[in-house]
């Protein structure tokens, strides 16, 4: 936390850092001056990078009604790294990352237990503003879903307007976000056209720009390429590599080659449990668990 103006003031608030509005991104209602300045140029940001936040799961359990889908996971997502979650269908990958920005509880009857720490702040603490959590931890979904009633520009500006932080240089922020998502040159002449008129890959990058516009610390990606063709997938993967300069990325993927290409670390899940996590290279070449080896070598799943 050096460049975003949210250095913890532990000297003032040694006992409960959570309640200090300046100390934690999920408490921050308006970006600090340094963060606002950083919004100005995504290019400069990408070049210089910024220290994003890490995420730690502690005994995270997720339920649908009484069915336990995620069964007590402890897992670290390192700052400015890409962590891939792999595992067979229904193993709880998506449920798990939906707990990281509290989207899981949007499903009727669903709830989560345990702790999810963004740096030191538990996002499940009772005093935490759920809206601020989601502003700090963005999410990209399986199917590209630009807002159908809005133009490309309005789509990217939507996050700023909807979360009420959009005052000021809206155009500059939208351009920076679109550049950050690597799609500025493709859409700069048609910003007023509807977002749903773009190709699937372009739509997904507009959605990524939409998430970047609110300047998140963490980006969760739930199989972001599963609806895209290989060329669009390649572009997104290149983008992920650039984005980790500014954000911490967690990506759920069914595609093990994709995990191998983009991820610094890879976690393997099986029926709600975390089997193994480690450097991607090690998970794919020399896993320590028998089940991981069977999965990555294609024996099941």
């Amino acid at each position, binding site marked *: 936390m050096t460049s975003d103006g949210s250095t913890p003031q532990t000297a003032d608030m040694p006992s409960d850092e959570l309640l200090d509005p300046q100390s934690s991104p999920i408490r921050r209602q308006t970006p600090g001056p340094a963060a606002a300045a950083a919004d100005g140029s995504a290019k400069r940001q990408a070049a210089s990078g910024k220290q994003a936040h890490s995420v730690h799961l502690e005994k995270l359990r997720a339920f649908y009604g009484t069915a336990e889908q995620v069964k007590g996971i402890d897992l670290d997502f390192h700052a400015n790294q890409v962590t891939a979650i792999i595992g067979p269908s229904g193993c709880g990958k998506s449920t798990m990352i939906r707990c990281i920005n509290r*989207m899981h509880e949007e499903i*009727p009857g669903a709830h989560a237990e345990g702790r999810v720490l963004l740096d030191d702040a538990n996002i499940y603490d009772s005093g935490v503003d759920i809206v601020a959590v989601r*502003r700090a931890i963005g999410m990209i979904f399986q199917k590209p*879903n630009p*807002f159908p*009633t809005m133009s490309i520009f309005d789509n990217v500006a939507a996050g700023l*307007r909807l979360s009420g932080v959009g005052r000021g240089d809206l155009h500059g922020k939208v351009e920076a976000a679109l550049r950050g998502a690597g799609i500025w040159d493709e859409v700069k002449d048609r910003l007023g056209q509807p977002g749903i008129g773009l190709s699937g890959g372009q739509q997904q990058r507009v959605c990524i720009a*939409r998430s970047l516009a609110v300047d998140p610390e963490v980006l969760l990606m739930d199989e972001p390429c599963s609806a895209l063709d290989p060329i669009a997938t390649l572009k997104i993967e290149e983008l992920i590599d650039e984005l980790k300069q500014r954000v911490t990325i967690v990506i759920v993927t069914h595609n093990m080659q994709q995990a191998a290409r983009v991820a610094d670390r890879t976690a393997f899940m099986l029926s709600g449990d975390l089997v193994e996590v480690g450097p991607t290279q090690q998970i794919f070449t020399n896993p320590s668990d028998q089940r991981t080896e069977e999965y990555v070598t294609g024996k099941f799943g």
Partner: protein
Amino acid sequence: MSTPAAAPSSVLTAFAPSPARRRRDRRARAMIAGFTALALVPLVLIVYYLLEKGLSSWSGSFFTSDPTGASFFKNVSIGGIKSAILGTIEMVAIASLIAVPIGIGVAIWLVEYGRKSMFANIVRFFVDVLTGVPSIVFGLFIYITLVVTDLLGRGLAGYKGSFALTLLMLPVVIRSSEVILSLVPNSLRESALALGAPRWKVIFRIVLPTAIPGMVTGVLLAIARAAGETAPLLFTVGGANATTFSPGSQMNALPLQIYNDILSPTTSVINRAWGAALTLVVMILVLNLIARLISRRSRLA
């Protein structure tokens, strides 16, 4: 199907239907066509008589003069239907102004907040029951609550008719809006929430704009239905000859005019009923056409 004699083993001959099956097919087709024709007979006759009898009574003064109340005197004009047209428009407008916001509000609550809760299901059940209630019951209800008691003003009044029409429209507006709102893809709500938008903003900025073309269709159909109702007005509005814009007094309406005129023994008065009926049908047709045009522009299924 002409089968070349030289190719008995052709695949096409193997798939040719047997004569018995062709006969059954012809019989079934004839039956279906017959029923369709039968169903069309009354529809065509209604349109034919409406045009034949109604058009003959249409004239410039038919739309610009109030009914005089005269019917027996050869040399006294019976007048037109101006007060009936204006009365219908005014009462339906008042009813819509009450029913549409409330109805859409209930639909939003059901879809976005109530969801599958016990209370929401009870609300849905009662709305369904209301949909099936005969329209005269709504008239009777207003009669015993507002007319007999002289609550909110004495006796019969236009706005009391509007209240009866409101009750009639509410379940239609609620149900049609609920269906349209639940067609809005959940992924749109989720991605807006994941951007850090508060729920009410998601509803007003994302869900409603997407759903509005579809909801307008349902609202217009509810309005069309209310415009054609006679029974709710009989004991609530009373009827009048002169044009009045004061909803506190008795008013005229197209269905009331038709109802009163066909009870008359005088041919010219009965013809006026046909003219009024044609006017009403054309008004409702226009509303339906507008509804179709708008629903064609809808972005939902």
